[in-house]
Structure formats: C-alpha cells, structure tokens
C-alpha cells in the first residue's frame, strides 16, 4: 500500500508532471513564473486547492453521480464544486487565517478556473484510484506543479538576461524555453516504476 502511494506521488511529480508532461495549467505556468516568490505562492495555493477539490469531488462522484449513471456530468458538476469550494475557502481564510489569506492573495480566486485542478479531479476518477490514492495523487500533482514553476522561473530569469533575436523576444522565447524544460522531464520516463517495481 505504502509503496503504491509513494509510486503514485513521485510519478505525479516527475513522470506525469501536469505542466511538463500533460500540458495542463500552461496559463499560470507562463503567466506567474516571472518571479520566484509569486511562482511559489501560486503553486502552494494550487496544491492546497487540488487536495481540497479532490477530497470534495471524489465522494460526490462515487456517492451521487456514479450510482445514478450520471458519470457524464462530472465536468460540469466538478467545475461547480471547485468554484464553490474556492469561494468558501477564501471566506474561511479571510476570517480565520488572515496571514495565509494575505500570502495566497490574488492567486486563490485565479485558481477557480484553472484546468489543472479540474484535470486532477477527473483523472483521479478515470484512473480508478480510491480515496486515499486520489488525495496522494492530488498532493503529488501540486508538488509537481511547484517543481515545474520553480524550475521554470529560474530558466526565465536566465532567458530575460540573454540577448534574444528581436522576433523571438517575449512569449516566443518563453515557449521555446518551456518546451526544452518539458523535454528534459521526458528523461524521467519509467524511472519511478523501475524504482518501486510497481
């Protein structure tokens, strides 16, 4: 059990990294990775919401949608639940943990419509994970997002100081850099299953 959980966790970080292997959440990946501290803030908020969203959507799918044969409604229901959850979370943090609310700041409402969150919740169902596995998978996906963001903010800092041909300046060179970062992560393919023997 523990081996399987660890395998899921590290697979999500290295092999199936949501940003660099599955290409979800590219918008914050390009938008918020300019500075290291905002990249970390955004990633932590994403991780937090991912785990909470999985904890809320998994029981609803398994308890309400699946028994009634309404699995096809998962997209719309999950979006609804994630939006409610994020709003609730924002209220809660504002009232009880103002320090965290201030730290997450503007990123929290931004995540409401983030496709990685929806992606994690839906793929957990598709992969047939049980509740604990889903939570671990969501946490791993969040940490993977953090790793990708932190690495890429470093890459971007270098790119910004380099002399780039005029036509590549700005977003084009950022996309090229993102593609190369993603290529390097392909080297992790199969490494986790080899280590854990799953």
């Amino acid at each position, binding site marked *: 059990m523990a081996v399987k959980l660890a395998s899921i966790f590290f697979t999500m970080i290295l092999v199936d990294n949501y940003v660099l292997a599955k290409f979800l959440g590219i918008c914050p990946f390009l938008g918020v990775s300019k500075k290291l501290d905002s990249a970390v803030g955004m990633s932590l908020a994403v991780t937090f919401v991912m785990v909470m969203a999985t904890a809320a959507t998994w029981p609803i799918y398994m308890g309400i949608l699946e028994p009634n044969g*309404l699995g096809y409604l998962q997209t719309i229901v999950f979006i*609804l*639940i994630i939006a409610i959850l994020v709003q609730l979370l924002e209220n*809660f943090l504002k009232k009880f943990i103002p320090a965290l609310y201030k730290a997450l700041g503007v990123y929290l409402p931004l995540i409401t419509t983030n496709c990685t969150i929806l992606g994690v919740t839906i793929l957990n169902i598709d992969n047939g994970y049980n509740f604990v596995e889903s939570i671990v998978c969501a946490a791993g996906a969040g940490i993977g997002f953090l790793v990708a963001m932190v690495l890429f903010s470093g890459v971007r800092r270098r790119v910004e100081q380099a002399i780039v041909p005029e036509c590549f300046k700005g977003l084009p060179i950022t996309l090229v850099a993102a593609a190369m970062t993603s290529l390097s992560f392909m080297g992790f393919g199969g490494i986790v299953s080899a280590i854990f023997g799953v």
Partner: protein
Amino acid sequence: MNPILLAIVIVTVIGLIGAVILVAASIFMYVPVDERVEKITAVLAGANCGACGCAGCADYAKSIVEEGNAVNKCTPGGAKTAAAIAEIMGVEAGSSESMKAVVACSGTCEKTSKRFEFEGIQTCQSVKGLYGGDGMCKYGCLGYGDCTRACPFDAIHLVDGIAKVDREKCVGCGACAAACPNSIISIVPEHKRKPVVLCQNKDKGGDTRKACTAGCIGCMKCTKVCHFDAITVENNLARIDQEKCKGCQLCVKECPVGVIHVPANE
C-alpha cells in the same frame, strides 16, 4: 425516474446546496471592512508606486485607518491627496512637501569619457559588474538607462549621456533611486532656491579632475563661503545639509567646477 430529469435535479440540488453554504458562510464569516479604507483608496493616486512604504495604494489606505499611518505620505498625490485623506479621517493634513528625484552627476559626454567600449547586455547593472563600469568616473551615471526603465511615470530619460529628471512628471516615488546601481539618485524635497551637489565622486581632487571636468574636487571653497555651516566635505565630496541651507546660493557662484546646482530651476 427519467434520466434527464434526474440529471437536472441532481445538478440543481448540488448548486442550491452550494449556494446555501456560500450564503451561510458569507454571513457567518463576515469580516467587517471599514468603509473609510475604500474611500481613501479612491482618492489616492492609484499608481501603486510604493513611495509611502506600503505594498500599494490599498495597503496604504488600510494602514492609515487601522494603524494610524500618516496621511501625507502619498507623494504622487501631493498636498491635494493629503488634504482629501485628512478630511475623510478627520485629522490635520500636516505639511506634504513635494519630493523629486535628483541625479547627482554632471558628467555629460563632453565633461567625461569612457575607459572602454562595452558590448555586453546594455544595462547599468551589467556594465557595473565589469570593472565598475565603462566610464572614466566610477561613481557617476553609467548611462544605460536602468532608471528610465524603472520609472512608472516616464519622468527620467538619458540626455547627453546622463539621466535627467523631468521635473514636471516626477512624483518622487523612488523607483529610479532603487534601480540605480551606483546609487546616485536621491529623493530630495523640491525647493526653488536650495542647491544640491551634483556629483558623487569620492576620489582625491586630482584623480577626479582626470576623470571628469565637472566633478567635485573637494576644494572646500563652498564650505568657506557658506554662512550657515550647511556644507560639509567628506571623502573629497561636498554635501549640502538641506535642513540648514537657507537658499542664499553663494556656493553655486563660488564652485570652481560648477557642480552645485538648484535642481528645481533646471
């Protein structure tokens, strides 16, 4: 039950439950917001420049109301904004001096020259990293425009090789001062008569002279002519105490290299 009806009912019920939870949460976890905060945010300049020392205009408004921060710290807004905030808060505005950036360097292209041709990344920050800059004078304006790029108000530009502040547009936010790797830009209260030494060269007079014909050589003539003890020479560089200065401008006439100027009149 009809599957279409079931789908509609389930989604509606989930939505309704969510709505009830959110309404309950917004009542239960209501955080009172002082309406003065919003009013003050509205009258602030809205530049989010950080000259007040807070993270932004909204943050400053909050600190005025909650922590009793002074009302006259908004330099872009000036006296008008300070008065408006004072009215909202019901306190005296206090004096709000107009602050402007001053570039302490007079080494234009004809006064000084370069030691080498720099072909790296065209920023002050990077040229500074190469033997302390490409100019003859290691203290002066590097002339690659880091300040121009930092200025949110388009108020500082390179003219004749050195940065020049547009006194109309400058609001004294200090973004340029923070960006300058040689720290030659300072934020000084704007005064029509009080002069400033526009040089940062701390080398001995002879060395300064070789590097730049417009540099302060530390000859002490200004200290002798000043009646108010406002000028001191430290590390071969004259400095005028703006508190003690009365604005007689005797030093301006006395300076042999003409490095003392009144920024407001330029």
